[in-house]
């Protein structure tokens, strides 16, 4: 069974690697956005799915990465791949600055503070016009690189999932879960919960940072409202809750199912997909708070590698 799954996964990866040779322009762009969502959902899962600290402004790292990369490309002429990696570094630095005070807050206070910080950064970016172009946005020199961005996004999605695998199957990951389960008991059992939360937070920022840089390059134009939208944070959260928070493959499953569904619906009815998202949140919270894989894991006592 295990070997069968592993081979199926390898075939899937090979298929995805070869896809740009056969795929249409639309297909490639669809896939690269799907990879982006997998990376975002998986990253949110690292902090919020494992420690239970719900980050309600996680897109702030995406925006940070997007602006870091866009400024490096537009003003300093950096190659986009290097600029995107710098976006990941920028996101980690931001996570350090935010995490130090905010991770001392508990439960809903942390969620609200993240929501607020996302808004603060959005406004700050609009304010520093000289560097960021302010509200009128920042344009990048045009470049056709969809296929290269497809591979880059795919690698980031794969890397973040591999990271989730390593974390969840390690004692470090179990300790993160103890914070979700009972933070006071975790402290009493010798776990330095603040330090663990901070590590998870830093790990959860790097993926969105890189992906933000890649998305900026892909779209060639960014503005504050396009890279710090609350709806993207909510989408990440819904994807993870739907697929199964705290599992390795839940965020991937949630991203694949919801993004595909969203794409199918929104090409026909522009506004209905938001309604659909709202409905899914309600259904998931009411009937399967653990998400698809969470339910299966609990019911059949599956190992943590799902």
């Amino acid at each position, binding site marked *: 069974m295990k070997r069968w799954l592993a081979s199926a996964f390898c075939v899937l990866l090979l298929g995805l690697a070869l896809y740009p040779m056969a795929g249409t322009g639309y297909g490639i762009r669809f896939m690269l956005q799907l990879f982006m969502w997998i990376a975002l959902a998986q990253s949110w899962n690292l902090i919020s799915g494992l420690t239970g600290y719900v980050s309600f402004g996680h897109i702030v790292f995406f925006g940070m990465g997007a602006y870091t990369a866009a400024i490096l490309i537009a003003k300093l002429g950096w190659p986009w791949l290097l600029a995107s990696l710098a976006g990941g570094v920028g996101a980690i630095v931001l996570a350090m600055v935010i995490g130090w005070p905010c991770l001392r807050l508990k439960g809903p206070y942390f969620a609200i503070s993240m929501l607020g910080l996302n808004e603060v950064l959005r406004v700050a970016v609009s304010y520093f016009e000289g560097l960021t172009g302010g509200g009128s946005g920042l344009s990048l020199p045009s470049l056709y690189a969809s296929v290269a961005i497809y591979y880059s996004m795919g690698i980031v999605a794969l890397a973040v999932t591999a990271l989730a695998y390593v974390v969840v199957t390690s004692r470090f990951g*179990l300790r993160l879960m103890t914070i979700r389960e009972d933070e006071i008991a975790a*402290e009493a*059992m010798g776990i330095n919960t603040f330090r663990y939360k901070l590590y998870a937070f830093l790990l959860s920022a790097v993926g969105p940072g890189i992906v933000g840089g890649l998305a900026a390059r892909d779209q060639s134009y960014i503005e504050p409202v396009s890279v710090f939208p609350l709806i993207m944070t909510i989408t990440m959260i819904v994807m993870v809750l739907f697929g199964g928070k705290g599992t390795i493959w839940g965020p991937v499953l949630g991203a694949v199912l919801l993004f595909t569904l969203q794409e199918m619906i929104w090409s026909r009815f522009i506004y209905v997909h938001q309604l659909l998202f709202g409905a899914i949140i309600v259904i998931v919270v009411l009937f399967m708070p653990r998400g698809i894989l969470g339910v299966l894991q609990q019911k059949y006592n599956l190992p943590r590698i799902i």
Partner: protein
Amino acid sequence: MTPSGLRPILEVDRVMKRFGGVTAVDRVSLGLEPGRIYGLIGPNGSGKTTLFNCITGVEQRDEGEIRFKGRRIDGLKPHQIFHEGIGRTFQIIRVFPELTALENLLVVTTNDYAQARERAQELLRFVKLEGLAGEYAGNLSYGQQKLVEFIRVLMTDPELILLDEPAAGVNRTLLNDLLDAVRQLRDRGKTVLLVEHDMKVVMGLCETVFVLDHGEKLAEGPPGVIQTDERVIEAYFGR
């Protein structure tokens, strides 16, 4: 110094803790000698759990000093106090429900994984739960969860173990196992301080009993003496 002249492993020195206008612990002093079992009793709301919380850093004491092996531990964080060698259980069970019984134990130590696993299996056998190692802790019975919480403390072999109502809600068979386990710990030189309402347990197990009432230490002595102390009887049953 304690009555027998041994250097105490834990010294609680005039510790005070207030919550608003309520003085939950009022200048309480205790000295625990190594290798003995102590009981902490008192009516509901007398400050037993608050004192536990002050010792383990879950609450910050307002006044007084707490020393463990001669070193001050008041002001340290709970995780630091744990690594000093003080383990505790909670009155209300605090296992990690979505971790398996085995994982509940593995998260505690910093030993290498193979060593930690071996120790965990050994402890699970010790309380006869080896068959449930892979079960989610939240699916275990109340008594089994209590045992998991108890052995979780033992993963790092702490020198002082604080047990908050270990007997509550545990059936007789399990309870006898648990009490045997506590005696074995004492025989290996560990010190145990337990809060307990079940007087049979306290009288059968403890060598010295401290009585708290309204946050103050009312009496201290061997269980037989405490049982007949008029002030203690009054605190429990009224005049």
